[in-house]
């Protein structure tokens, strides 16, 4: 199978600082890929390049045989990629269900004129959108939280809502930036279950950034390791774990890679 996503020699500089240096990686359909690396390694920058937030200084990004690194920001969702954010970025003063409805934006057709006239097709569309949203919230474990304002949700619920909102885009590639960050072990275990369900039940391809080694080693089939903007290793979890360069990169950070606890 051809890769779903292919990052080709991407470099991204910020005035003197090279956040990504000639990084290449490929993601196969229906796999869970991990991106790891110490703080400031360039992981989030990579996601920002993939989702149009940053343009690569050089290099290309291809998705489903189409070059996407020149698309406008809002074109990425239409291309079939959606994401969550490391520092949760929900629509805080909208309800959970409204957040998910915004996620469905590109699949709905109502415009300002039909919104005013409100023919039956609009009522029908809205009704089915709400239904889809309720189902997605259910899937993400947010049953009965539909009408809660996003900012009133518990931290773990907010992370789940971000995933539900991203799923509403109906992406073929889902990018999760530290989905378990700040969670207690119980919440994190629930999140890992959800991520597995995304692939197994929703047939989703996922790239996730993680600090928690337990999460990465547990769910990812392939791992890419970044350090100072460079790709220093790549492979199956066991391979990466043994890689001398990876161990060195992590040694300086005080994180212990092998004991299963980050």
């Amino acid at each position, binding site marked *: 199978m051809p890769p779903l996503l292919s990052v080709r020699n991407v470099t991204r500089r910020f005035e003197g600082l090279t956040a990504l240096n000639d990084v290449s990686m490929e993601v196969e359909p229906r796999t869970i890929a991990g991106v790891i690396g110490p703080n400031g390694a360039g992981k989030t920058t990579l996601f920002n390049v993939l*989702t*149009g*937030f940053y343009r690569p200084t050089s290099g290309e990004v291809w998705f489903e045989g189409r070059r996407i690194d020149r698309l*406008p*920001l*809002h*074109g*990425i*969702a*239409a291309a079939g990629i*959606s*994401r969550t*954010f490391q520092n949760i*970025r*929900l*629509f*805080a*003063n*909208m*309800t959970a*269900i*409204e957040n998910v*409805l*915004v*996620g469905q*934006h*590109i699949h*709905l*057709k*109502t*415009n*300002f004129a039909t*919104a*005013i006239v*409100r023919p039956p097709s*609009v009522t029908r569309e*809205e*009704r089915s959108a*709400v*239904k889809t*949203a*309720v*189902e997605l919230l*259910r899937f993400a474990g947010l*049953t*009965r939280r*539909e*009408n809660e*304002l996003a900012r009133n949700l518990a931290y773990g619920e907010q992370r789940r809502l971000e995933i539900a*909102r991203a799923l*509403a*885009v109906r992406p073929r590639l889902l990018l999760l930036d530290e989905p378990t960050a700040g969670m207690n072990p119980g919440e994190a275990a629930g999140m890992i279950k959800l991520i597995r369900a995304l692939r197994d039940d929703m047939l989703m391809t996922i790239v996730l950034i993680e600090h928690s080694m337990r999460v990465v080693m547990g769910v990812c089939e392939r791992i890419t390791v970044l350090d100072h903007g460079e790709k220093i290793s790549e492979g199956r979890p066991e391979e990466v774990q043994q890689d001398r360069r990876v161990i060195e990169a992590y040694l300086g950070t005080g994180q212990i890679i092998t004991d299963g606890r980050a």
Partner: protein
Amino acid sequence: MMQRFEATRALTRALDNANARARAAFDAIPLIRWILPLALGVVGALSPQWFDTRPTYALMVLITYLLLRTSTNVFGLAVLAAMLVYLPMEMDRFERGILFDIALYTMLGIGLNIVVGYAGLLDLGYVAFFASGAYIFALVVAPEAGGGWDIGASFWLMIPAAMALAAALGVALGLPVLRLRGDYLAIVTLGFGEIIRLMLNNRDDITNGPRGVYLIPKAHFFDKELTGPYELYFLVLAGVFIAAFAAERIRDSRVGRAWEAIREDEDAASAMGVNTTFYKLLAFAIGAAIGGGGGVIYAAKQTAIFPRDFDLDVSINVLALVIIGGMGNVRGVVLGAMLLIGLPEVLRDFSIEFAFIDLANIGADYRLVIFGAALVAIMVLRPEGLLPSRRRAAEFEQAEMLESELAT
């Protein structure tokens, strides 16, 4: 130095506390919200001159407030409509003028609310669209200005035409300022409003400059000539209802959600596939179209318009009434317009004559002071406005229903 800073901080804290207490008291006694308008209404009803400006006004505010607070059903709308039609019949010319202004500013408020309240774009130059609607209409139909097309048919065509042109102007303003946020956007739009006014003032070859455009012909409704504020009041009332209907429906749709998402987090909205450029321009365009429509009606009523009718005050008043009423909510706009436009006028004959106290002219002399104090009081007690937007009841119920369907 440090001490002064401390003192300021302590003062701020004390004020915050007092503010919080006042608000808590206000909220703890829900009846206050009813007693206040009720008292106004009783005063109005007991007044010997029933249709004196002040009591009538108090009564109107009361009824509107109560109707808007409780959910609007058919009955509420009918009462409101009856009041809006009946009251002006009993009013004199001056009072009808106030009523017209309230309705006109309500219409403008609904338009600006789309830009500021829904899409979150702080626009301080809204008068530009109001002015362009008025001038487009006036220049085409006033013979003096070299236009002088037949008004008979053209008035009803001019309204949509002027709205379309104002919308185009809205897009023209929107394009260069799209990347600006918050304060910067406010400053640039403020400048835009002034530029339009200065252009009207200085391009005498087109606009007749400060001398204005006058002898704007009367509009006709079938055979009836629409002469004064009374007839045009009904026209602007129709405008208010159409604008309010459209605004609320758009807000409760995919489009309204896109605006709200942009207001909340523009980048996250883009990541969800919302074309933020398009939706911001759409907000500017719809807001401008409503303002332009208001401008046409204004010009038709005035029969003479001047650049000085369109200065910064208009933008500020419209914005203030949106904020006082409660941002993001059409109902709030109605109430805001009643207070902001109506209050300074009715305060003119406010007087206190009681035993040896004789302040017969207090209203005439100090009305703007009283008005200002009232605005400050409202903002201290209700920083979110009098009628802030409610969460969407429809979606709420729909979700509840589906939830129980799925559960079974």
